[in-house]
């Protein structure tokens, strides 16, 4: 019998990252009781745009920011609520993240943790959202240059799409779970532009093997693969803080070389399974069903998937 996620006789469930709300993720990720929220819901800093569209607002605009401790180390943290407007970036939502990153430049925490869960930019406030994406990317590079690692954690329903995918690519390190997805264009966008023959967005197995956590980890697009539990994400974040790469010319040139090499090596592949075969995976078809333990063993055997290229 394979692994059992629940043992009804003895213990309940480990808290699922995928299912947890943004607030529950923060609570489970940080040291107990250490989180201090900035601009909390009681301040009612809500979107000024959504009422124009007769859409409901959220007290925190779907972005929760603040400070806390991770295994005793001071960190700043931002979490997107993927169920509110698909976690999309609006004006307040984006500004809160930009503000947090700028504060980090002054506070110099041990790390900034970004808990992605986003479909991209909110259509109803697209200009503000797009601007925020650019400002966030700029702030992250400044922060990394100042020696503060920025760790992205991706395992929510909405994944990290659109501008969220771009921001993820600027982070020092990324943790992803099986359910997590990273990409710029979403499945529906690709299908709309290129047709269902090119990419059938309703074929969920195809979506996940193209954009999902296992594929991103196998090709080096993410640096750690975590079980879908809050505890596993916490452990992975802790591990990665100590392994953040320097943000210098050498790192960037190595990344560029890696990306060029990747294109040469896999550019003609029609499906992720072909890429995995070329990576040396013996049974590519079996990868989606692998348990975390078996997948970790596979990663260890391949040995080439840890580098700084996204």
């Amino acid at each position: 019998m394979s692994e059992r996620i629940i043992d009804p006789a003895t213990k309940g469930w480990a808290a699922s990252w995928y299912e947890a709300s943004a607030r529950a993720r923060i609570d489970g990720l940080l040291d107990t009781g250490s989180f201090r929220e900035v601009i909390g819901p009681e301040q009612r800093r809500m979107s000024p745009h959504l009422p124009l569209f007769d859409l409901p607002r959220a007290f925190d605009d779907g972005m929760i920011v603040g400070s806390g401790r991770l295994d005793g180390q001071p960190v700043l943290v931002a979490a997107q609520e993927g169920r509110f407007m698909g976690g999309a970036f609006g004006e307040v939502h984006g500004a809160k993240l930009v503000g947090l990153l700028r504060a980090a430049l002054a506070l110099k925490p041990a790390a900034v943790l970004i808990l992605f869960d986003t479909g991209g930019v909110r259509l109803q406030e697209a200009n503000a959202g797009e601007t925020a994406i650019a400002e966030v990317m700029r702030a992250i590079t400044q922060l990394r240059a100042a020696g503060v690692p920025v760790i992205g954690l991706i395992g929510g329903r909405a994944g990290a799409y659109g501008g969220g995918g771009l921001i993820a690519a600027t982070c020092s390190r990324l943790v992803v779970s099986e359910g997590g997805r990273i990409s710029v264009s979403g499945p529906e966008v690709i299908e709309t532009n290129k047709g269902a023959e090119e990419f059938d967005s309703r074929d969920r197995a195809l979506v996940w093997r193209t954009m999902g956590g296992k594929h991103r980890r196998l090709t080096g697009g993410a640096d750690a693969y975590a079980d879908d539990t809050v505890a596993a994400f916490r452990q992975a974040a802790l591990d990665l803080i100590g392994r953040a790469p320097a943000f210098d010319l050498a790192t960037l040139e190595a990344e560029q070389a890696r990306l060029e090499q990747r294109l040469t090596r896999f550019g003609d592949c029609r499906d992720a399974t072909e890429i995995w075969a070329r990576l040396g995976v013996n049974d590519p078809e079996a990868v989606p069903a692998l348990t975390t333990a078996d997948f970790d063993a596979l990663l260890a055997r391949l040995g080439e998937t840890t580098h700084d290229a996204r």
Partner: protein
Amino acid sequence: MSGWRRERAARDARIEAGRAHAAGKVVAAANVVDLLEAILQPGDRVCLEGDNQKQADCLARGLSQCDPARVHDLHMVQSGIVLPEHLDIFEQGIAKRLDYSYSGPQGSRIARMLYGGQIELGAVHTYLELFARYFVDLTPNVALIAGVSADRDGNLYTGPNTEDTPTVVEATAFKNGVVVAQVNEIVERVPRVDIPGDRIDFVVEADRPFYVEPLFTRDPAAMTETQILMAMMAIKGIYAEYGIRRLNHGIGFGTAAIELLLPTYADRLGLKGQIATHWALNPHPTLIPAIESGWVKQVHCFGSEVGMDRYIRERSDIFFTGADGSLRSNRAFCQTAGLYACDLFIGSTLQIDLAGHSSTVTQNRVAGFGGAPNMGSDPHGRRHPSDTWMKAGREAQVTGDPALMRGRKLVVQIVETFGEGLVPAFVERLDALELAKKIGLELAPVMVYADDVTHIVTEEGIANLLLCRTADEREQAIRGVAGYTEIGRGRDRAMVERLRQRGIVRRPEDLGIEPLDADRSLLAARSIKDLVHWSGGLYEPPAKFRNW
């Protein structure tokens, strides 16, 4: 020609005409239209196998391409109206009259065509009822069926989705009808013989495998706290109370939640082995954790479910399987089992009125009944006792000689007070009555009649209708669990409180259930992936249910 063998002679002539397009019994997919035009005659009664799950889709496409000048005015007698072609043939004039049971995906279109008079409707049946009529007054002249494989003699392997096939073939082949089977492949030797070759006249090698819809897969990820609360109440307030071992579940999320709470919540209540041991049920993926935890002794199936084949093969102690190892389902037998050998049916519905009548028919959808009215009715022909059945009988009995008391089947409706889009589940008057008037149906399409319903479970509580002694009590018991719907807000609060004292209305707190404990952490599986893990990797969910 003998005056007593005219049907047989006509059948032989049809087969003779069909042979021109066949090599022996085997017909190429490209010749389907020619074959059908040769064997069909205007006005024929035809069963175009459209089951709850499996579809004879290659033959359906063929029939819809026939020339309406040659093939017309057919009388379709089939349980499922599922594919577009099933209705296209009415628009084309190929078919004229319809008797059926279930039309889930085509529910809206069939309603429009009924309003428009494009279909001459016989009746909307239950499965068992339509099957019965195959042997009395709706015997098919031609049956167009589907299987996984056949040999050249016509010996047919239906695969795990046997479903309606044996019943349809029995009625057709033994009453001078012609049987055409589409198969995914023609083989030297079939894995097992589900239908002997002498009942199959033609075998069509289909251009692609027959279509099967995964109808019974409920993703645990979509299960809500409200559904979990209702499931907790059903387990504690009904399953435990009546000691229900033999049962059938509907396909809603409420009943799927019950399945997922057996190894967790029900286990904590010490109910293992006491409840939910013997089932008439399709192989629901959400039952896997209960099976793996040793709750389930036996399951007989109407049909199969996409992705469950390997799991079933490896669990033959639980399921009915053939010598080849694969599932043998049979809708007619399983419906009979659900009717006579189960002590409880629990299912959902779209509308319940103040008396307890319920229907899934709304003004613009005629979904049909399928098996629910069979499962959800008290069989007056039952003659074997069980503790559950007798207890329910005692609760219902008010007058007469106790020595002549008979039991009652428990028929439970489990509904959330508001459905999709804040549509109330409780109404003054069923839409089904309006629809019947509009299209001139003699019999309103009621799914479960009030006198069959014994309990209604909502997130607000359980109403035990067996214990109601007057129509007024019954109405207030229903209003008493109807939540914030207009029906619920219209309750007589004092009377509902009195019904509560008598245990006719029971709230979560009356059952010792704290609504805030209704949490997703109680589910034995919270995702399809968890179900795969529980199955030891044997359950292979279809792509639309995966996120890996």
